[in-house]
């Protein structure tokens, strides 16, 4: 599960703690869609001990936290490939089991990257890293000069009826609640970008704990889509140091106290960014296995089951093993692969896809969804995505999109009808995580009905302590069985999504 960009950890612990499972249990029967002998045998192959053995490999120190890119990640990919080969799966990519895509480890070109506060008579030049900074994520070429509109703390009230088209939103980091709500509202109000500032009386620098990390990765490079000069950069954000923010407001005539939300300031802002052209290009891999269907027609419809196999690597001496995130989902798919092998073909085809680059911004799923490879004549019909399913209460499992989400579809209904048989009496809502794992890419770029199974974050989330000894293997077993039952439930002549 991807960490929200620039998200201070405390800020997002709040909404999670506040969320409670809210889905009403389904009244429909909870019998599995099929209960043939094959299915029983297939379900029997899914065993906690085997999942455990796999996960102890995937989350071993030798794989060094499976960062994108890293040799640990490549070893994990080869481990997965070896299993697919052993099980007799068909390659799911054009030239084997590995779907290759290319990224660039983008570093900032500091000479050509600068910002300015431009008033009527005065221009204040800003230096990257000390006067302002931004996350290295999604670094692009950009030449931006636009007027600033002060948007308060970016609350709904602050932004009411504002159209920020062509403007940069200047936003004070909210004193309460998560900042990313403000971020989304500003985006919705059509701003071309935003400038964060701390509160007028702030003593700490805004997002201060992150500046060092941003700086480091701006210089060391961070994998992302290859950047081309001249391309439309889209919505970007930056953060101003407190001293510079005061200067900005003073230049705009608000030396004492900040203006009302919605005030267009008399100063503009220049935000130019450039990518070091020597930033290296790198090849990444998704691991894809194909299990052809048996029905002459329906075999051309493929159900995509996905889990990311990357994690966040090493920091200093500490290895982030990522046992739950997402060794658990990775091994769920391995269990499903073995079960399907035992079962034999279903009517529709199944693609198992282990994607990389998730922690760096859903890169692997996006790459595939934008340029999918499927055997000739085959089209994808839906995606079930598994990310972090091995922790918290044995009966706790969350799903998105729920019926309260605009993307709600038949997959969720199917999951809800089957989950009680695997010890998940009720599925909680993971709607707030809808955009944070790979299913979002399959929906966004391919328009597929998707669903996401997730057993919530925990105290070890994105910590070196997310280790395999803490994983509930019986829970992963039951999630794997649920996924297999869902696949079996998707074999009717027509599927009602």
């Amino acid at each position: 599960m991807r960490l929200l960009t620039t998200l201070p950890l405390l800020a997002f612990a709040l909404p999670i703690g506040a969320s409670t499972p809210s889905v009403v249990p389904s009244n429909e029967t909870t019998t599995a869609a099929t209960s043939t002998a094959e299915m029983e045998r297939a379900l029997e192959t899914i065993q906690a001990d085997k999942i455990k053995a796999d996960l102890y490999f995937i989350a071993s120190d030798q794989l060094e936290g499976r960062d994108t890119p890293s040799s640990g990640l490549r070893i994990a990919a080869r481990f997965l490939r070896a299993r697919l080969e052993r099980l007799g799966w068909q390659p799911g990519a054009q030239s084997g089991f590995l779907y290759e895509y290319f990224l660039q480890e983008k570093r900032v070109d500091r000479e050509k990257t600068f910002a300015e506060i431009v008033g009527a008579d005065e221009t204040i030049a800003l230096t990257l890293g000390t006067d302002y900074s931004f996350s290295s994520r999604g670094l692009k070429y950009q030449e931006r000069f636009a007027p600033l509109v002060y948007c308060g703390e970016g609350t709904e009230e602050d932004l009411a009826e504002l159209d920020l088209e062509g403007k940069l939103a200047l936003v004070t980091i909210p004193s309460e609640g998560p900042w990313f709500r403000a971020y989304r509202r500003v985006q919705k109000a059509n701003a071309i970008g935003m400038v964060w500032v701390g509160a007028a009386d702030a003593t700490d620098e805004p997002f201060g704990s992150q500046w060092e990390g941003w700086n480091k990765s701006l210089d060391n490079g961070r994998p992302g889509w290859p950047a081309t000069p001249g391309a439309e950069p889209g919505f970007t954000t930056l953060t101003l140091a407190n001293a510079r923010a005061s200067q900005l407001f003073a230049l705009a005539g608000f030396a004492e106290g900040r203006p009302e939300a919605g005030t267009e300031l008399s100063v503009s802002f220049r935000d130019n960014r450039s990518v070091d052209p020597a930033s290296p290009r790198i090849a990444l891999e998704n691991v894809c296995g194909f299990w052809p269907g048996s029905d002459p027609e329906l075999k051309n419809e493929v159900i995509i089951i996905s889990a990311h196999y990357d994690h966040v690597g090493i920091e200093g001496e500490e290895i982030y093993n990522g046992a739950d995130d997402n060794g658990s989902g990775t091994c769920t798919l391995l269990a499903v692969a073995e079960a399907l092998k035992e079962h034999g073909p279903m009517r529709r085809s199944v693609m198992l896809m282990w994607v990389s680059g998730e922690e760096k911004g859903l890169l692997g799923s996006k790459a595939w969804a934008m340029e999918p490879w499927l055997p000739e004549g085959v089209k994808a019909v839906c995606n079930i995505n598994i990310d972090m399913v091995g922790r918290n209460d044995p009966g706790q499992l969350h799903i998105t999109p729920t019926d309260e989400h605009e993307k709600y579809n038949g997959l969720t209904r199917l999951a809800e009808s089957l989950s009680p048989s695997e010890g998940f009496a009720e599925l909680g809502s993971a709607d707030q995580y809808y955009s944070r794992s790979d299913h979002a890419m399959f929906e966004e770029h391919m328009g597929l009905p998707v669903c996401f199974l997730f057993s919530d974050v925990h105290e070890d989330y994105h910590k070196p302590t997310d280790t395999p000894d803490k994983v509930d293997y019986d829970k992963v077993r039951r999630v794997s069985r649920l996924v297999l039952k869902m696949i079996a439930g998707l074999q009717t002549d027509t599927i009602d999504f």
Partner: protein
Amino acid sequence: MATLNMKLSLSALLALGLAVSVGLPGRSSEAETIAPELSTALIAALDTIEAHEIGADVRFLASDELAGRDTPGRGLKTAARYIQSRLERLGFTAGAGESYLQNFALRHRAVDLERSSFTVTASGGESAKLDFDTHYLFTNGEVWDHALTAGVVGAGKGERDDVEGLDLTGKWALCLDTGRHAGLRRRLLMKAGAVGLIVLPNLDETDQKRMEKIRRSAGWAKRGSIEYPEEDERALAVERPADDYFHQVYLTKLGVERLTALVGDAPAAELTEPGRELDWSATDERFLPGEGGLIQVENVCGYWPGSDPVLTNEVILVSAHYDHVGTRDEKIYNGADDNASGTSGMLAIAEALAIHGPLRRSVMLIWVSAEEKGLFGSQAWVESPTLPEGARAICNVNIDMIGRNAPGELYITPSEDHRKFNGLGKLAYQFSSLEGFPELGDADAYYDRSDHANFALLDIPVAFLFNGEHEDYHQPTDTYDKIDTDKIRRVSRLVLRMIAALQTDNLDL
């Protein structure tokens, strides 16, 4: 398969290779090749051994990502983890006490680049820290945990005329290189009391070939060698008398630049003028990695307990080494045949045993490491066998390189002609034709070159199965794509048949 002892000459090696190839095809067995009646369980077990599964394992183990599985190395550890994971999946019992991994100590005699340095300190106190390889070199034979600080005295070219009459007690000698008679120079200087030697390159006279040799030796020092420590050395750094260490340091051109930047640019002839006391001192700190170079390495052991209350204490050892020779000059030695083939064959045997269920006797599967360094993994196991209380090893089947050459080509040692020929070998001859090896060649020339040689030290009969050398032996070209996975399958089946035949009440080995 380990390389021959370096002391053997190349011609001996060639002769050996010749003998082996001439020895082909192997003599036909006099033993009957009648298929014994197989139990359903054994048939099912034999059938689980599949070429494509073996191929998947070989491909993983021989992938570039495992970097040639050098001892020690992350690739080797990853391979161990891979094997362990399979044993766990198959429900094998941990074969080394609580763990699947038997840890043992080796000494990695290499320069720890992080900690080692050569530092020159001028009279004013300022100093220059030089880096091994870039600024200075020393040879492979002088990789120690030892530090030396001393003043520096010129000693000319270190020739007899230069050194005679000099008192170098407790000092570094500073010499201009001649490229000749390094041994004599060392003896003369030691006799004059010097504790070390700093050699300035003489760009005119130094024999470039010899400098290359030193550079190569320094390269070895950097990569290091692996030794099997004596029992009393395993916990401690080696303590040797101080006068065992005579530090010889060769400055490179870049090193001389650093030196002159610190102490000024004087002609080398002037600096090395015999008897001239220089006003700077030098410190040479040499470190092995970790604690005196001691490293922990792993054998992977999976135990398959027997069902017979008595015979369960008799253990059949099956072994294959899972290490190879690593990466050199940026070329990865994948070791697909040597010995990802045997490693994967044993994984297939493990799965077959899991399908079969317990036999009457127990089986211990041992994947050993550091074979390529000198059969150290098997040596460690033999010194501390990881058998349950009351159990004893009764024989060893070792497989090393079983995936290349002609499909029907397989060798064994000890063969019928070897003085150690035994009942285990008889079984191999008996069953080999059933698996497509009509005749077994003799690999007696290789008797000392793989791990069975160590297991034989337990006074148990051993058998070694091997497909013969090939052009890719110990080359970066020993790759996955050249592997005959069906051949590995058949060798694995052969071993399983041998194990299954070792279940009678009494064994005549």
